[in-house]
């Protein structure tokens, strides 16, 4: 608990920024969902035949898990990609359903004699809607807005996966560092925010259903003013973080975050250009799409990953041939692969140190004898990639009694250490290998292709800002596997701030 408060107080500015982004995202998305959902609801309430299919469509949208929704939207032009815009689109799609539903319910719930009175008084349809139907349906509509806003606070945490910022950043950062304190640092404010939003809108709803127009109008006005002030404030706080020129991305694990921070700091230091950090983006494909669409300018990729996962080429074990092939493939799509940073983050087949010592395991070949009574746990990528599990099992004749458990990469280290699985595929540079006393089995048949880390940037950006290239080149060949493992260990096991880790490493380079 004290660790949590220490974290908050040492990250005050960042916390305020993320909270601001979160609030801004939710307020904007909910307002847009209401602007869309209320007219749709009015439209559907009057046309029962349209209402059913509309509700069905909205319900289907609601059932799509938000992470999958972000995935669908990645390649879509204009609304897709990564960043706050795509997140807004998803949050709005989620928010529309409850608002449409309660708008319809509110309008249909109006006493027929009241509506008839309006018509008989000579109200035109529009006058009836504005003077009678909408005021009476308002409490119900606000109830829908409340649901949309509370769902929005939750979904917005997931939006951090595509670089929209917000409190989810702490949750993802914490997950990738396996650090509960950091997860809670994001999760608790998000929960409090959800409760606060729920409470505030419930209060408004009660004020409105009290059928006291004058009073409820005052309540609505003061509420709207409070929301506007909050949104303005958050956009102020959020704007201080955004608005940079060079956007650095990274995938969602510690090493990538450290490398992203290194790129960002070296650009800031040597070029003086403002840098926007979009760290912790989902996986390889998300980063690649973001780079293609221009949502980010640079991130660190691994040559073997680029070859097979991005360009769908067959596995190749010759490091320099792979680098040349990947550089050419990138060049054809308007991107520049810079020289390797100096370390090869190949897959590491890991077992518990105690097991390795007790059974004398040294290589993956040795694993074949243990496999029939061992359980394996692998990350999503490793299971699916051609250079991952299926090929490895063939190359080494591995036969596990059950299919490998598929789990989050960063959680698999803990799962191995705590005995839930017996073998995992981690990263060769993972700090936790040292921290958790894990042992890396040697790839003695050279099954795994090279995964040399190298920055890949938009050619356009490098042309416009030649100084960025000069700055990035300063890192080329300077980061050894030992350096990387040490930095990962500092971040993962010692829970040090990646900004400090990166800064200290940069100092040693001079």
């Amino acid at each position, binding site marked *: 608990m004290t660790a949590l408060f220490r974290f908050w107080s040492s990250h005050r500015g960042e916390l305020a920024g993320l909270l601001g982004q979160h609030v801004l995202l939710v307020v904007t998305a909910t307002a847009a969902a209401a602007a869309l959902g209320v007219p749709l609801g009015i439209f559907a309430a009057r046309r029962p035949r349209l209402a059913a299919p509309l509700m069905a469509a909205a319900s289907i949208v609601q059932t799509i898990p938000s992470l999958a929704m972000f995935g669908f939207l990645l390649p879509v032009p204009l609304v897709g990609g990564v960043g706050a815009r795509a997140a807004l689109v998803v949050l709005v799609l989620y928010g529309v359903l409850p608002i449409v539903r309660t708008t319809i319910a509110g309008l249909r719930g109006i006493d027929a*004699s009241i509506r008839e*009175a*309006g018509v008989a*008084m000579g109200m035109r349809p529009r006058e009836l809607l504005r003077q009678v139907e909408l005021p009476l349906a308002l409490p119900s509509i606000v109830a829908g807005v409340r649901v949309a806003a509370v769902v929005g606070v939750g979904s917005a945490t997931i939006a951090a996966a595509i670089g929209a910022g917000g409190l989810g950043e702490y949750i993802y950062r914490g997950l990738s560092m396996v650090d509960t304190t950091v997860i809670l640092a994001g999760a608790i404010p998000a929960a409090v925010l959800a409760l606060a939003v729920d409470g505030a809108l419930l209060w408004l709803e009660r004020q409105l259903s009290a*059928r006291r127009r*004058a009073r409820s109008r005052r309540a609505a006005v003061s509420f709207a003013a409070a929301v506007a002030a909050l949104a303005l404030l958050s956009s102020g706080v959020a704007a201080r973080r955004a608005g940079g020129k060079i956007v650095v991305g990274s995938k969602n694990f510690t090493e990538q975050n450290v490398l992203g921070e290194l790129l960002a700091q070296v650009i800031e230091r040597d070029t003086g250009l403002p840098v926007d950090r979009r760290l912790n983006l989902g996986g390889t494909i998300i980063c690649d799409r973001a780079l293609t669409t221009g949502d980010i300018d640079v991130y660190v990729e691994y040559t073997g990953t680029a070859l097979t996962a991005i360009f769908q080429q067959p596995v190749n074990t010759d490091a320099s041939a792979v680098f040349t092939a990947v550089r050419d493939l990138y060049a054809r799509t308007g991107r520049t692969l810079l020289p390797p940073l100096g370390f090869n983050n190949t897959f590491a087949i890991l077992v518990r140190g105690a097991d390795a010592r007790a059974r004398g395991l040294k290589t993956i070949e040795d694993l074949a004898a243990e496999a029939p009574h061992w359980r394996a746990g692998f990350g999503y990528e490793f299971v699916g990639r051609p250079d991952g599990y299926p090929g490895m099992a063939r190359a080494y004749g591995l036969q596990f009694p059950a299919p490998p458990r598929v789990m989050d990469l960063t959680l698999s280290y803990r799962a191995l250490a705590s005995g839930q699985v017996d073998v995992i595929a981690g990263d060769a540079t993972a700090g936790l290998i040292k921290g958790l006393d894990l042992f890396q089995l040697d790839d003695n048949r050279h099954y795994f292709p090279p995964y040399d880390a190298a920055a890949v940037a938009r050619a356009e950006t490098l042309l416009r800002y030649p100084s960025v290239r000069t700055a990035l080149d300063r890192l080329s060949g300077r980061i050894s596997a030992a350096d990387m493992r040490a930095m990962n260990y500092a971040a993962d096991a010692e829970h040090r701030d990646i900004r400090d880790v990166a800064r200290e490493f940069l100092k040693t380079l001079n």
Partner: protein
Amino acid sequence: MAVPAIEFRDVTFRRPGRPPVLDRFSLAVESGDVAALVGRSGAGKTTLLKLVNRLLVPDSGAVLVEGRDTREWEPIALRRRVGYVLQDVGLFPHMTIAANVGVVPRLAAWPPERIAARVDELLDLVGLPAAQFATRWPDELSGGQRQRVGVARALGVDPPVLLMDEPFGALDPLTRAELHAEFRRIQARVRKSVIIVSHDMGEAFALADRVGVVEDGRLIAYDRPAAIAASREGHVRRLLDAMPAVPR
């Protein structure tokens, strides 16, 4: 003779798949008269009123208001000339009493001072002093007070025609008698052409210049109260015999 304020000419109205609600129904209400139409529940009384302000249109025949077929009237203009007091009042629960009474003048885009003056005048007319009632809410009023507001609202822009659907149906006998007296007092001042529908012959006698009896979608009798009271016609007698007390 002058053009009747409201006239039904051979009006037939049916709901799909049911016997006709109105079957060649004819009636003429003279300007300034109060006509009370009496019949059992389901005799088509509410339908009659809705045909007058064009909430419904006849299947055959014609309804004329001030000598003009309702189908030729612009519906909004027609409804501004026809005040309507609903069976269950239908006050707008989200509006104050003053706002409810001022609703039609507001729709007619009167200037605010004129609306305020008219609302005060109407509230005084129905015996609810504006100072005391204007800012109150429908759910704070008794049933009788709500009925008075309903009448005041219907009179908003001083329409020449007034339709009242079981206006005093749900009230206790004392309040009812009080409102009957009030209605006669108001009518003496405003001289509207009025159709009241009711299932209660006593009410008809208390309020109307002419009483009509509706049975199976037709008008089987229409005359002065005294003449109706003396009728020998079977349906009329049955309705008269159902009355709890002798009318004045």
